[in-house]
């Protein structure tokens, strides 16, 4: 990318006020940039709100996605610092919890599958412990008595993504970044192959750099030479209310066909379906049935709990499930930070660090080098 003329106070316009756009905006504003963030609706209310906030680089590692693991591990390692900084600045908690994550299995088939995944993940150098059914139930006494085996990942935890989103809003305010909500970006202002600002209907907002962080909506921003291969991947989720005095669960638990995330306030999140349904935003009976059936098989006590909330989110799914982080392949002045799929919360700290560094210095952090926008052009040509 030919770099900006490096003004003293570069003007950066960010499209998308999810956790990615807000975290990048915060880092840039901290470094003295003039930051404007534009969100089509309300900041932090898309995938950022819908997510479960698991920081689980370890147990989520799966075949075919080994390349993503170093990025996830690095970002996970940055979360404690990121969270602490955010909490000190804003005085708001973000609910970072590091008590570990448990994966459980009951039937013979489930145990075989767990064993295969465990061996695959151990082969990647991940620090996991195989547990007997009894040991798993010792960690979580309300698990189904049939629980026959488990895997414990001490390093995998969670953050309360909704609290983190709320804290980031305050952080933006405190660092002088401006958030514009309910605004549709109708185009990119392009002058001789270079993006020089955003078009909002009749208005043009000049910017030295534009960052595209619009998640599942990234392809819909008009004026892009080659829109990123990112699509919405629908997920249905729900939450129940646990008795805080005697919570049904204390660790994040991955069970066959669902995960369970207990929050400090007693909320128990159950997620999530994975559906190719475009931007369809409806809860379905089948979705609720699948979530509750899977949760009940793992943790029978859920049947007593009140239902708190149900919601749908749209993961920004990239073609290879990895984010697109770096300069646009076709347009100078445009930087992409999108396609984080199921890892947006996890990858927020490293995305913010690396993208703000790229915008301010033109330097591509080695961590994000494999995730440039050009990788799909190569695939297309092949």
């Amino acid at each position, binding site marked *: 990318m030919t770099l900006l003329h490096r003004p003293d106070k570069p003007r950066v316009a960010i499209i998308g006020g999810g956790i990615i756009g807000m975290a990048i905006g915060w880092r840039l504003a901290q470094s003295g940039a003039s930051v404007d963030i534009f969100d089509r609706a309300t900041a932090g209310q898309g995938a950022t709100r819908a997510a479960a906030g698991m920081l689980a680089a370890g147990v989520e590692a*799966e*075949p075919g996605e080994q390349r993503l693991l170093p990025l996830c591990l690095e970002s996970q390692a940055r979360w404690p610092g990121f969270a602490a900084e955010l909490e000190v600045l804003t005085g708001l908690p973000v609910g970072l919890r590091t008590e570990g994550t448990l994966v459980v299995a009951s039937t013979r088939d489930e145990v075989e599958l767990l064993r295969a995944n465990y061996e695959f993940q151990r082969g990647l150098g991940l620090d996991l412990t195989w547990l007997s059914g009894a040991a798993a139930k010792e960690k979580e006494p309300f698990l189904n008595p049939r629980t026959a085996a488990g895997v414990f990942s001490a390093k995998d935890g969670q953050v309360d993504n909704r609290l983190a989103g709320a804290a980031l809003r305050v952080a933006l305010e405190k660092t002088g970044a401006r958030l514009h909500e309910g605004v549709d970006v109708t185009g990119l202002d392009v002058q001789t192959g270079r993006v020089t600002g955003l078009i909002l209907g009749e208005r043009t907002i000049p910017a030295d750099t534009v960052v595209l962080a619009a998640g599942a909506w990234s*392809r819909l921003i008009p004026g892009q030479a080659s*829109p990123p291969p990112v699509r919405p991947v629908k997920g249905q989720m729900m939450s129940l209310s646990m008795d805080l005095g005697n919570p049904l669960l204390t660790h994040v638990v991955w069970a066959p066909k669902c995960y369970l995330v207990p929050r400090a306030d007693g909320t128990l999140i159950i997620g999530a379906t994975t559906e*190719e*349904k475009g*931007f*369809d935003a409806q809860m379905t009976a089948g979705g609720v049935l699948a979530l509750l059936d899977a949760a009940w098989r793992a943790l029978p006590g859920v049947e007593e709990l009140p239902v708190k909330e149900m919601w749908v989110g749209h993961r920004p*799914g990239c073609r*290879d499930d990895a984010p697109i982080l770096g300069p646009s392949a076709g347009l100078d002045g445009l930087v992409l930070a999108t396609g984080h799929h199921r890892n947006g919360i996890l990858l927020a700290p490293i995305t913010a660090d690396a993208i703000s560094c790229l915008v301010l210095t033109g330097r591509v952090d080695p961590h994000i080098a494999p995730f440039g926008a050009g990788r799909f052009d190569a695939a297309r040509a092949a």
Partner: protein
Amino acid sequence: MNDPLKIAGKSFQSRLFLGSAGYPNQQVFLDSLAASGSEILTVSVRRADLTGYGEGLLDLVAGKVWLLPNTAGCSTVKDAVLTAQLAREAMDTNWIKLELIGDRETLYPDVEQLLRAADELVREGFVVLPYCTDDPIICRRLADVGCAAVMPLGAPIGTGLGILNHYNIETICRNSTIPVVLDAGIGTASDAALAMELGCDAVLLNTAVSKSNDPVMMAAAMRAGVEGGRMARLAGRIPKRLRAEASSPELGLIGT
């Protein structure tokens, strides 16, 4: 070797059908598809994104493969017929892989519903490829109502147990008047080769590739397995013997 697979008047060079579900991501799927050499891709109508947003699976494979929509998730005749009609509208094909699942534990086909749905869809002009049990009688009945191929299971869906009843599959292949596509149960390349050696015209598989640690390499292995099994079938295996027989001549040796 020019040995095309012919179904409903259409020829295919590859005898491997690939399923499109459960890959780690779309790129791995696309690479696996290329490595498999498959020309026929099955897609679940109910689970595919038909909104045309631009990055859905159907957008990515458009023009590259012959789409075979399936009725996965259907359990009644009515369901299946409606789903087939939706597929015809949305995917612009009258081919349908007919699945009517009897229960969620075994995922076995409900053959009574299947036969009725197949009959109805054939009369509506569909090219019907029904997923069925490894039962020679139901396979014959499905051929009788006008199905274009039969797709008996090797083992229950997703089990990877291979072909559990060689005898039935061989009997189906020997008697069938329409192509036989072994569907479900394939775990590894030798299972696919065995299906072809038993006389199947093609193999459909999905999980064995999509859930492998290296889907792309497994897709290539399946291609080789299907091709090897087909060639072995055409070449003809030797009769099995109970006693050893040296492959070199035993008479006329020097010194005797």
